């Protein structure tokens, strides 16, 4: 074998080996590196107690309720599964926090199953479009249009 061919062969072999190692590592990290628990994950594995976790999903349509004190809100996080998580948060939410939009909340589960959040982050989807188009598609209801 010519040295050039030998180097090519060795290098391709090394790349395949490293790639295999990475795939194995990624599959091992599948759950550990997840940024948040979805309602389906919580239903499957049980609510993690006594430590700070992040949960995420969609804010269910019509579920945001503002409490009498004016700064505490309750809402329901859903995903594609039939399971939901009830969340309570006291504070200011990001502008993009709205119903039928993505949300990530950090906090703790209470024994009752209620999730009390210290921080709310908004997660938007991969769609970008002008406002006029959105009204036409009717995917998101805008308060100002009523």
């Amino acid at each position, binding site marked *: 074998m010519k040295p*050039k061919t030998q180097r090519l062969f060795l*290098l391709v072999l090394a790349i395949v080996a490293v790639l295999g190692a990475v795939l194995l590592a990624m599959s091992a990290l599948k759950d550990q590196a997840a940024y948040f628990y979805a309602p389906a994950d919580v239903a499957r594995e049980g609510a993690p107690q006594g430590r700070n976790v992040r949960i995420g999903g969609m804010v269910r349509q019509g579920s945001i309720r503002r409490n009498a004190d004016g700064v505490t809100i309750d809402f329901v996080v859903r995903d594609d599964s039939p399971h939901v998580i009830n969340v309570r948060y006291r504070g200011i939410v990001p502008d*993009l926090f709205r119903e039928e*939009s993505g949300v990530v909340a950090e906090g703790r589960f209470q024994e009752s199953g209620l999730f009390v959040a210290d921080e709310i*982050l908004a997660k*938007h989807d991969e769609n970008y*479009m002008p406002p006029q*188009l959105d009204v036409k598609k009717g995917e998101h209801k805008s308060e100002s249009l009523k």
Partner: protein
Amino acid sequence: MQTLANPARFLKIARPLTPVLGWGGALLIVGALAVGLFVAPRDYLQGESVRIIYVHVPAAWLGMGGWTGLAIASFMQLVWRHPLAAIAARAIAVPGAVFAALCLVTGSLWGKPTWGTYWQWDARLTSMLILLFLYIAYIALDDAERERGGEGRIAAIFGLVGAINIPIIHYSVEYWNTLHQGQSISFLRASSTVDASMLWPLLVSAAGFSLLFGAIVLMRMRAALARQKVEARLRRYS
């Protein structure tokens, strides 16, 4: 590729190509950003803050594309021992690092008004930060190796191994649940969830930044070749 591996022939093409890419890129960037900032519509959800996309996405693509190019050059250097391949890999590292950093900074500024945070350790953001660290490590390693008179083979191996981060960045938003949204534009499937009125200035901006990236790489390669020539002559006279 074989004909380009000859430095003299490379210079013959690179010399006139550099200003074409540089000025062409600058023109496209100015045009695309003007359209992006003043003509393109605001987003239905994010409002005006969406306009940072015209810098953020091209920077992300070039940060990742840069390392892909660096890895290909490293591969060619290791297998065929092309001296020009080593020079190309080194030339890519600095602009690649700059664009990776630009992606992180613009992404952070974009995250505050939309997500409500400058930084979170989700898989996409973390893997992109690792890419910046890989660039910095590559530059340091390559400099150290050259100072000792090496040919840059250790740096080339590092460049090749570091390439595994590129598919990790790409698939991070599909494989793990993340704060960062999923993929909007796929060249493989030729599909996009970005409205046409925002997509075309984005693609023109990406083309402009790519040309500029190419011009910077050619300039750095020419500078490296010139330095080699100077060093060779100095050795002959001393």
